[in-house]
């Protein structure tokens, strides 16, 4: 198996799907030639031509809207947001046009809106947002947050092949941080299947995206220092949500920590905790804890950013409290 970075894995999935299916095409700012701000589509225009790799004006509403129209007309467009933060400029197209078309018209709208999200890299308030919860609360949109290189490839593939609008949040901090084995050729990870990152019996961490790594570090630390046996579940997709896997883990361990890098209030951890509080009530040996970013914009200076984003220490502390409860 070749090894790839998270970024290369996404690129590989896009390329593989474009070879496989003529209806897949890419549009976004600077995606042709330049290959996008993070060079995910570098070389694509040379291989697939200007008609399938389209540089657009700076018009997120038109870009997303055009993707919807192309999807209605039989294509599978992949839209790159230069940064996921800019999806706010095309929010109406996603929330009102894309999300309601299947319901109202019974016509599939197979499209993927993807781009770099997340903090921890000094991006400041406008290049760091984790906004997956907005979309998880918009029925009709699927929401994908890969945390590993293999998943990044497999979920990208699944998102492209899905017949619905999918928004994929790529964590820019992971783009070049991890290099892993990634299956060659066509590779799909079905949407809606959680992954057990680490098996354990003492407590469950339910998480996704960059926090998978934070949680893993915390778990290793607790394993070494106190012999604690932490299970980590990466939900991988918020919508569809693999409730069964999450419930099963917490029913086994009796202790749950839900974690994400997004801000706390109204974040998807609330949704997960709520489901646990409803459906795992009798299995819980401790309160359900959440770890998330402080409720603020993501600040720019590293001292501030480190302080507001959830850290290994905070996860470790929360887990320790859970275990001691």
């Amino acid at each position, binding site marked *: 198996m070749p090894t790839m970075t998270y970024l290369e894995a996404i690129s590989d999935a896009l390329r593989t799907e474009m070879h496989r299916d003529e209806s897949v095409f890419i549009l976004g700012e600077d995606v042709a030639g330049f290959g996008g701000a993070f060079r995910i589509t570098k070389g694509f225009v040379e291989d697939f031509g200007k008609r399938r790799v389209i540089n657009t004006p700076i018009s997120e509403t038109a870009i997303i809207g055009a993707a919807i129209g192309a999807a209605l007309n039989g294509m599978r467009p992949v839209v790159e947001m230069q940064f996921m933060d800019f999806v706010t400029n095309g929010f109406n197209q996603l929330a009102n046009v894309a999300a309601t078309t299947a319901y109202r*018209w*019974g016509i599939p709208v197979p499209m993927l809106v993807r781009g770099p999200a997340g903090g921890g890299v000094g991006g400041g308030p406008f290049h760091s947002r984790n906004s997956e919860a907005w979309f998880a609360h918009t029925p009709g949109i699927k929401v994908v947050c890969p945390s590993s290189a293999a998943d990044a490839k497999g979920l990208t593939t699944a998102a492209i092949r899905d017949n619905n609008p999918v928004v994929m949040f790529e964590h820019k901090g992971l783009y070049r941080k991890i290099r892993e084995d990634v299956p060659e050729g066509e590779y799909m990870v079905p949407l809606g299947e959680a992954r057990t990152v680490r098996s354990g019996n003492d407590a469950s961490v339910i998480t996704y995206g960059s926090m998978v790594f934070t949680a893993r570090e915390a778990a290793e630390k607790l394993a070494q220092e106190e012999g604690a046996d932490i299970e980590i579940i990466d939900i991988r997709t918020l919508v569809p949500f693999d409730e069964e896997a999450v419930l099963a883990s917490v029913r086994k361990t009796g202790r749950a920590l839900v974690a994400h890098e997004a801000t706390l209030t109204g974040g998807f951890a609330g949704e997960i905790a709520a489901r646990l509080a409803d459906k795992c009530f009798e299995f819980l040996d401790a309160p359900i804890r959440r770890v998330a970013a402080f409720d603020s914009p993501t600040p720019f200076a590293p001292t501030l950013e480190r302080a507001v984003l959830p850290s290994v220490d905070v996860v470790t502390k929360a887990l320790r409290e859970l275990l001691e409860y």
Partner: protein
Amino acid sequence: MHNSVQTTIMSSSQQTTATSQDIENSIDSRAETDIVPPIEAGAHLDDDDRRRVFDFMLQTREFDLAMLRLYRQGRAFGGVYSQMGNEATAVATAYALQEQDVLFPMHRDIGAHFVRGQSLHALMLNHLARKGSMMRGTDGTGHYADPDKRIYGNISHLGAMIPVAAGFLMASRLKGEDCVAMTYIGDGGSQIGDFHEAMNLAAVQNLPLIVIIENNQYAYSTPNSESFACERLSDRALGYGCHGVTVDGTNPEAVYDACFEAIRNARGGGGPALIETVSMRMRGHAEHDDFSYVPREVIEYWGRRDPVDRYEKLVLERKIMTADEIAARRKEISSQMNAVIDEVVELPFPDAEEGFKNIFMD
């Protein structure tokens, strides 16, 4: 044809106040003489076309009257947005399309649905959200899509479908299909960002997108003077590098010719067009609205420019139909429409379970 202006009915400017200004803005400066110019035969329709266009206009008018009746009877369901004043525009624009072309209509374009062969029964089922309707009760009015007839309805959010229409054409190009898309926006709606982004994208991508700005003087209660300050909304074409023209929206010959030329140009690779049709919304925004904010003089001025009446004169003059034939046809349409509407309105709403389906497609 670059940004040429065929007919200019309205002159507006940067006034931001008062009713007297709004009257002036909505009325031709030659209003004092108020001679309504007769409609002259245009370049591209023949008399057979004229018969058909006129018939679609009659259908549109009778549809409106039938819906009004339903509304007055308290049996209407969903918004009743009058088509009155817009018949020439809705019909003549869509009539310029070919079968493979695609239509993205708005709320005052029922005439365009008829032109594309939509049945009144299907339309009413959907409008009234009855069981068996195209949208299964999930939504109503003209919001449906009917891919077979190449109709993709609007959503409420104004302007949202313009980029969608552009993207539809990007797909057509990728598939190597000959397809022109036509969509509509109001004097009000053309102030939304979607309009700008989509026009620009269509121009830079050189897409065969025809955008009709239905300038009917008002956006709900807001007169043009509080909506925009340019002279003609088609002046915006210059800023996108596409074709722009303003035509008399009560004159189907002028509307058709402008669309015909824009479509021919677009289909030949000449890029998008912005066509402003100037007319008047002759009733309230929807039927709950008594439009008392519109000065009486404005209604009277435009009343004398009723599109159906004006075109009837041409139809008579050219002996396409006799007055008796027209009267008979009106009656026929009316009774057929009322029959369909009366039937559909009695049908049950869809089963509740429809509400739980199709959130996602397999």
